[in-house]
């Protein structure tokens, strides 16, 4: 009896340290952001509470084009990172035969900080970067300006390259974990039943990995949607992602810009959150239909 009672409260005890952390540190931060986004900053003499900062944002052409631009950057970089990451996960799976060094090396980008990745991308892909120098040496281009602008460009190519480098191994790591767990059970069964490797991958492995892949996609998307360092260092001033837009308002010496910065940030959070909630809802629908897996999220 007592034991049963205990097992009922066990999860709450296990989750308690995390909840303490969130409520003592993070909740305050979040609350502050939401309150300030309504324009309420009493210490600095701003008392009016309203939603006008949100209204202003959505009626502002620059904000709207930033919104689409951020969406595009986050979506494309997450899609590319996930595709490449899954591909590498299969490659790692196939080639893992005692070569521990290269097995460690593929994870290198994970430990390189984002800001460092940004300066490396500049050094390699800018008009005077290494690739441009190599093409010059090969006589393919005659001048640095012949090299296409890949960094500080309006298309955000540099930003997406940096994300790809940083996120693909993260995807690999996550997917590989699950992939290894799956191999034992289902793949052999499929092979015993005569499936070729193509069929095994597309009919067995990928569907089993689907929930993991989708949730990894969402995490990388949400990260790129709200991240700051890479788009800040590689941006074209003509195309800003939402976090950069918020950052300029946040850092603006004009105090009255602070609520706009917070409203932008809250908007970013709400968008990412709604994607995740929709995903969880979809996942639940799928699980009810008898599909397995998914794990966390």
């Amino acid at each position, binding site marked *: 009896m007592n034991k049963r009672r205990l097992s009922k409260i*066990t*999860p*709450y*005890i296990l989750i308690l*340290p*995390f*909840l303490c*952390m969130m409520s003592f*540190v993070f909740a*305050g*931060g*979040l609350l*502050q*952001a939401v309150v300030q986004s309504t324009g309420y900053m009493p210490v600095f003499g701003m008392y009016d509470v309203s939603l006008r900062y949100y209204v202003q944002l959505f009626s502002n052409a620059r904000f709207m084009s930033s919104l689409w631009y951020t969406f595009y950057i986050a979506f494309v970089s997450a899609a590319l990172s996930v595709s490449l990451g899954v*591909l590498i996960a299969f*490659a790692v799976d*196939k*080639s893992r035969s005692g070569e521990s060094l*290269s097995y460690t*090396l*593929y994870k*290198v980008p994970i*430990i*390189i*900080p984002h*800001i*460092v*990745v940004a*300066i490396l991308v500049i*050094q390699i892909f800018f008009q*005077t970067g*290494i690739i441009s*120098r190599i093409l*010059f*040496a090969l006589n393919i281009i005659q001048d640095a300006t012949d090299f296409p602008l890949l960094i500080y460009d309006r298309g955000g190519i540099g930003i997406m390259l940096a994300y790809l*480098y940083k996120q*693909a191994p993260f995807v690999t790591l*996550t997917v590989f*974990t699950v992939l*290894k*767990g799956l191999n034992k059970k289902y793949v052999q069964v499929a092979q015993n039943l005569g499936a070729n490797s193509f069929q095994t991958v597309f009919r067995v492995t990928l569907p089993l990995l689907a929930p*993991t892949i989708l949730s990894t996609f969402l*995490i990388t998307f949400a*990260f790129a949607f*709200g991240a*700051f360092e890479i788009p800040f*260092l590689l941006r074209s001033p003509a195309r800003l992602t939402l*976090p950069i837009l918020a*950052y300029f308002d*946040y850092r603006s010496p004009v105090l009255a810009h602070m609520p706009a910065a917070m409203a932008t*940030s*809250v908007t*970013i*959070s709400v968008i990412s*959150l709604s994607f*995740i*909630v929709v995903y*969880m809802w979809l996942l639940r629908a799928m699980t009810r239909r008898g599909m397995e897996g998914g*794990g966390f*999220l």
Partner: protein
Amino acid sequence: MKALFYVWVFISCAPLLVLAVMTVSTFWPYPALLPEIMSWEYYYHVFVQNDQTLNAAVTSILLAVSVAFITLMIAVPAAKALTHHNFFGKDFVKILVLLPIIVPGIAVTIGNQISMIRLGLTGTFGGVAIIHSLFALPFAIRIMSNVFEAVGNRLELQAAVLGAGPAFIFRRVTLPQIIPGLLAAFTLSFTISIAQYVTTFMIGGGRVITLTILLVPHIQGGQTHIAAVYSVLLIGAAVLSLSMMEHIVRRYYNFENVFYA
């Protein structure tokens, strides 16, 4: 498939070579393929002219290790609860876990600072470690949940049926199974900590000086070569401490045959 893997290994590592060249190239005009003048000038600025550098390196490592431990101590039970238990509000907690990734940093910076001031933790090493952990938690909880999912809880239940206590079960049954996952989560938390900039400044208030605090201003000022020297130091410190960690763990647990990590 194998070729793809090696191409990716090359793509992963080639930028580090570029970084190394940047640290010694004093004059590298376009379109030269290699620097025309190389020197240790930037190292001199970083290591000799700035006497904060070595202390900052030590602080960065100690901080990252503490963050990794704090994060694991919170993430492991939380992940356990989220994978092997059902409870009211589970979905809500799952979303809560992701919040630090989703909410842009600048939105919570000042608010977090105010919370930390009220807790009396600003300007302290511990305060900075806590705020870093906050941002490492979503990743760590995710990794550990995947691990618990893969491991399952059958062995634990069996041990319990056989009459083992929770402490014994954790040490002898759970821990050996999740060690590789713990290492992965440790690595990720460590990496997140060493890269933190604004949070370190806001909570550390300039009293806790890490390598990133010294590095970032040089990027803002366009001195990328000096930033490159700090980056090399940062990456070197990370690789060294992480491989030491892995080495130590491997001495106690042999996990050759376990899958993730």
